[in-house]
């Protein structure tokens, strides 16, 4: 017998046995008995089984008798018989005997529920909860990658498998935190503390086993993943068996084979990259401050950002604000010497946004001091200079955001990839020809289930793909049909400088049309939307505090990473 049913039945009998005071003090004795039984059942179900709690039960029951007197005798019965009661002090006083009856009923109910439960325990044996999720898990889901896609899949699986079920989830990632990339430029610009935009995977995922490691190989025949622990000794790789394998490996920077650029530029993908850029900018100012030669000084405070997409534009805006802001602490550096240059191969920045917004962004950034080199390519990079297609720029700083490519591990796994290097998947995100293998996010060529268009490699899509894939894996585990992935973009947001942003919000039910915002309003939308999307209440609070401090205090110029 199920424990809840058993408790309810016991409570009903206890309610019946306790109902005499109710019947004696209320107008309708038979109805009182019925009410007593129902309430007894509810009381026992609500209290649960606590052994030996006679006194607690009696006191709690008696105390609950008082509001029950109000709800049933003072309101319920008159409402059902003669309409809503007049409900004044005199009419309440006339029901005083029933108050005594209810208190007595409650006290008796508390004692008898305990007594009957003890008797039932002796006769039928002690209550036992269903042994849910006991024993070894029979199905293993292994997720490779702890970015938006991997994290959303794990969280979705936890939600979907909530309440037990013989399924274990393991997440393998070389980082122990989820990086909230939309705010990465603010870390590079010194307005946010680095760790505040990262959420520890161990704290966020409650049912998922987290393994900090790198996937070396996948044996699709034996269904195992070979994982080497980060920082572990060679040869200590472990094999993790899987029934379902999720590839959410993300993307890496693509230098298109330009080794010099790769060697002499700063990357902008990870938290460490962002911190390194901030520290590098401060280091350049430190050197420039003691540099007597104007040309060299000018080169030191020249910062080149390659790539005019979201990442490049936001980073250029952030570096521009940061460098011009901290120049007050470096009196030897004139504000006219500072130069932030954005190099982009096309004729306009922000190809993801409409042209009017892109022009607005360019105009605003130019007004704040950003130098644009459109239709220009970065050809080479050497220490102290960057060669562009239209000339040479003397600088110590080149940040590369001009290209990304799916994680090359996919190729080493022997999966079929498209020309970008992304895993070819069906619209359900299942890898064709590899049962139980799924891929999503930046590393997969996911096509929309309705429009058939390729999904862009953005966090917005990765999060939805993760949730959809979790549902599909749940369906696969239960033998149900899978659903193709479909999601219409909600829009795009991009910060271009201090309290200035561009926003393009897609209109619901009119997907071809969008609303465009710019300036302060768009900036407030950016902050509002992204703070709500930032995982974890604690992180939200920390970022809000950072933003508040930023209003009142100058940005910090403490170097936290030793310069190379």
């Amino acid at each position, binding site marked *: 017998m199920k424990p809840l049913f058993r408790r309810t039945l016991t409570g009903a009998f206890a309610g019946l046995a306790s109902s005499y005071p109710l019947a004696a003090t209320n107008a309708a004795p038979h109805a009182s008995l019925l009410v007593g039984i129902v309430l007894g059942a509810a009381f026992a179900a609500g*209290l649960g089984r606590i*052994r030996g709690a006679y006194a607690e039960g009696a006191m709690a029951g008696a*105390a609950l008798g008082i509001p029950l007197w*109000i709800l049933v005798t003072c*309101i319920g019965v008159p409402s059902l018989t003669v309409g809503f009661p007049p409900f004044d002090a005199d009419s309440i006083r006339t029901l005083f005997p029933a108050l005594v009856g209810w208190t007595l009923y409650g006290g008796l109910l508390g004692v008898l529920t305990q007594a009957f439960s003890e008797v039932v325990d002796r006769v039928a044996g002690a209550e036992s909860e269903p042994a849910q999720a006991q024993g070894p898990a029979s199905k293993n889901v292994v997720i490779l990658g702890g970015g938006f896609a991997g994290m959303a899949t794990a969280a979705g699986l936890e939600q979907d498998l909530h309440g037990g079920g013989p399924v274990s989830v393991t997440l393998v990632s070389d980082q122990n935190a989820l990086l909230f990339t939309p705010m990465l430029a603010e870390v590079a610009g010194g307005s946010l503390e680095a760790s505040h935009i990262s959420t520890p995977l161990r704290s966020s995922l409650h049912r998922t086993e987290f393994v900090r490691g790198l996937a070396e190989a996948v044996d699709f025949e034996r269904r195992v993943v070979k994982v080497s622990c980060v920082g572990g000794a060679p040869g200590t790789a472990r094999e993790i068996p899987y029934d379902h394998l999720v590839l959410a490996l993300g993307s890496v920077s693509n230098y298109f084979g330009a080794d010099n650029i790769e060697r002499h530029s700063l990357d902008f993908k990870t938290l460490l990259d962002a911190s390194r850029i901030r520290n590098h900018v401060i280091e350049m100012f430190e050197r420039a401050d003691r540099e007597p030669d104007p040309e060299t000084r000018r080169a030191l405070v020249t910062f080149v950002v390659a790539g005019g997409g979201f990442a490049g534009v936001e980073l250029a805006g952030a570096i521009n604000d940061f460098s011009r802001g901290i120049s007050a602490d470096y009196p030897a550096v004139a504000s006219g010497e500072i130069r932030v240059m954005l190099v982009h191969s096309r004729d306009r920045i922000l190809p993801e946004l409409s042209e009017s917004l892109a022009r607005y962004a360019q105009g605003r950034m130019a007004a704040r001091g950003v130098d644009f080199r459109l239709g220009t390519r970065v050809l080479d990079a050497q220490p102290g200079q960057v060669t562009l297609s239209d000339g040479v720029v003397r600088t110590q700083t080149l940040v590369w955001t001009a290209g990304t490519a799916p994680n090359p591990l996919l190729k080493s796994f022997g999966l079929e990839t498209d020309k970008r290097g992304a895993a070819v998947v069906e619209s359900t995100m299942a890898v064709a020809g590899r049962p139980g293998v799924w891929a999503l996010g930046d590393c997969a060529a996911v096509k929309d289930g309705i429009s058939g268009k390729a999904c862009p490699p953005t966090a917005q899509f990765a999060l939805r793909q993760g949730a959809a894939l979790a549902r599909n894996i749940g369906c696969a585990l239960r033998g149900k049909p899978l659903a193709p992935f479909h999601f219409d973009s909600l829009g795009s947001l991009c910060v271009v400088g201090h309290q200035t942003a561009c926003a393009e919000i897609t209109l619901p039910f009119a997907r071809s049309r969008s609303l465009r915002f710019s300036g302060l309003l768009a900036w407030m939308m950016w902050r509002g939307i992204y703070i709500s999307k930032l995982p974890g209440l604690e992180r939200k609070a920390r970022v809000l505090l950072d933003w508040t401090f930023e209003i009142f205090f100058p940005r910090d110029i403490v170097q936290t990473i030793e310069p190379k």
Partner: protein
Amino acid sequence: MPIPEAQTPSLPAARGSGIDWVEILLAIAVGAAGGALAAAIGHSSIARLGSAGAAFGLVFALALRGKATSPGAGMIWGLGAGYMLWMVLPALAVILHGAGYSTDAMLGESRARFPELVGCITCIGAPVGFCLGVWGTVRSKSAGGFHWGRAIVAGGAAGVIAALIFTRWMYKGDFYPLIYGFGRLESHSGAVVFHFFVACLIGTTFGLLFQRDVRNLGSAMGWGVAYSMFWWFLAHFTLFPLAAGARVDWSSDRASRLFGPIIGHILFGLILGIIYAGVDVVWTRLFVDSDPLNRKRQGPGVNFLLALGWGSAAGFSGGLVSLPLMMHAGMIGRLAGHGAGLHPVFGVCLHLAVSTFIGASYGLLFRGETSNVVFGSLWGLLFGLIWWYAGPMTLLPILRTGECDWTPEAAAAHLPSLVGHLLFGLVTANVFLAFERRYRSWLLEDPRYAALEKRRTRPVATPAPALCLFVIGLGVLLPILLS
């Protein structure tokens, strides 16, 4: 990942394995002596109350053995049991004599038996519980976790601060509810000093008695109210008349005259409990929880924000459900300020906004108090009751007229809205509990954190049910009997 096995909770094992005859004899002796004393003061039958007291002591010692773990816990169990004794015995007599009772006669009889209520509480329930608590502490020799200095300093300071806040309202009218009826004070400054002395005394003894039981701000509020109500019975009915050399009068007529001070005591207890627990919580947060060695899965900030959000949603639900009753009781009109000619819709919006705000305070005060629907409902009812005394009886009149109206007539006028307040508390508590349980079940899925989460919830063996019975029972009974 394995999920921890669900187990039926049990109460902590009672002290010792066999029957403690000393404990039983002590309880019988204290109960009999208390009953006889109550009868002597209340001019009742000594044999009747003396034997009732002895029987009470016997039943109390047997039924609550092992639960009176400290003098404070024993006292709260005693107060609840004392109230039950008064309520149950005559009721049994009425019921067993058949259905031939009349409402007026029963109400009149209850009023006539008011001296017995005072006796049951001050002479039987509280002393028996207190003595068994002292005996339990001595026998188990467990003083671990108790800090005398903290109890005295924090309790005394809380009492004085509560009195200070409280006195701001009372100063204009020269009305000091804590010492109302103490006749020998002629000068105003003397009254002020004596008022603070009594407040400090209540606060200090509160700290000494309940330091182990106070867990959260909300439960501390309940403990404060219960203890302050006990002081109303003890001081106004017995100690002050004795100190003033006057005749001790436990009648319902005198209780009606003391109706204002009972509200004063309830509000004082509320403030006392919150300040005491607040000092305790701040101390714990600053010097204990902040230690990395004591790190919890989530910091207090996250818990605070979660409780705030859940409490707001729960309060809004409570406000919505209690809205029809509040409208019927005329509360919405009063909120909208009919005199100022404001639209009732404004009153509805204001009611929901206030409900949300109060619900948020419930979340902050009562988080982690229980994981059980029955006990959760009790805390909610207690909260609703306290807000009835604090809201329509105190704050609303102060906002409208600048003075609070603590007369039995005002209580009679506001009695219908008490129902709405109780319903509000009930719904708020259960919606909040639903949020809390959902979240906790989430955390409990990981066995590593299950033990930590369980520790944060009040165990079932504390005297919380007795406290709720005492406060809710008297909180509803007194306006009915005395107004």
